[in-house]
């Protein structure tokens, strides 16, 4: 893998991957960086790079979350400085902080699928492969998560 492709992956998918890793752990940047470095050392490189990256980020983030739970003192301190997940945008119809908080309250299964689909651009088939579930289950959780977000963000029905 050349540096051009790696740089393009960082530019185009780095933020979404960090957001995806934040669903489980606090050190999301480290997890994504390790996943990208792991991608560089893959011989041969994976056929579908993006789903492979999401799967590696997911596994590493879950492991990191376990380690964070073991260090309870650090977890409490980190919870106090929860980063904002989205950049502030004036034209956005949603409040960034409210959207972040609403997302954080969703179950991890729904959150994971919403982030992978909306910001990661993965199809439900790819999400099913990453999350190790069927694509219909992934779609069902996606709908359920969006419905819960609509209630929490108080978005009026059309």
């Amino acid at each position, binding site marked *: 893998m050349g540096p051009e492709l790696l740089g393009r992956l960082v530019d185009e998918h780095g933020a979404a991957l960090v957001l995806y890793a934040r669903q489980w752990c606090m050190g999301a940047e480290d997890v994504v960086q390790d996943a990208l470095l792991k991608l*560089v050392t893959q011989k041969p490189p994976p056929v579908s790079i993006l789903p492979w990256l999401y799967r590696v980020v997911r596994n590493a983030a879950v492991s990191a979350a376990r380690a964070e739970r073991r260090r309870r003192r650090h977890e409490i301190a980190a919870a106090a400085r929860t980063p*904002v997940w989205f*950049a502030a945008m004036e034209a956005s119809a949603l409040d960034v902080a409210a959207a972040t908080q609403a997302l954080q309250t969703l179950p991890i299964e729904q959150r994971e699928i919403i982030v992978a689909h909306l910001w990661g651009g993965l199809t439900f088939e790819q999400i099913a492969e990453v999350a190790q579930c069927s694509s219909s289950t992934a779609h069902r959780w996606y709908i359920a998560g969006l419905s819960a977000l*609509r209630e929490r963000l108080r978005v009026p029905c059309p």
Partner: protein
Amino acid sequence: MSLDEHDPGLVGLEAALAALAPMPGRIDRDALLFRAGQLSLRRGRWAWPGVAAALGVVALTLGVVLALRPTPTTVERVVYIRIKEPSPPAPQVREPDVPPPEPKSIAPVATAARQAPMNYLELERQVFRWDMDGMPATLEALSPSGPPLTRDRPFSAPAAPPTFAIFFDLRSLVQ
């Protein structure tokens, strides 16, 4: 699977959420590319340490073998060598007509002289060993021109057979 099939009202929320841009995070792009370059060069880093470790094991094994090797023991053997006893000297026959016997040492020299011409080194060795007293017959026999001319024999006559040859012929007859 389209979202519109289940709840068309969620499409607006989905679009609003998708419009949010994730925070870029703190991924240092340059540092990441630098580490990727480092990793690409570290693939064969175990080759030379592996070779060194293998050679170390070989050297250690040879050292242990050398240290535990039994010391070589000296084996003493008695070897008996049979030496042929020399044949007893032939009895000497004293006769008035027969010239005095030559020393025993002449025998090998004379025999050799009868069989093949004696070279200089062998002649010198014989002279040093038996002195000149033991050599006249031999020298006479080896002389190519025969006995020197004297007053009694002023002319060159056919050379008489050497004395030692007669002696040995006689001795062989006696035996």
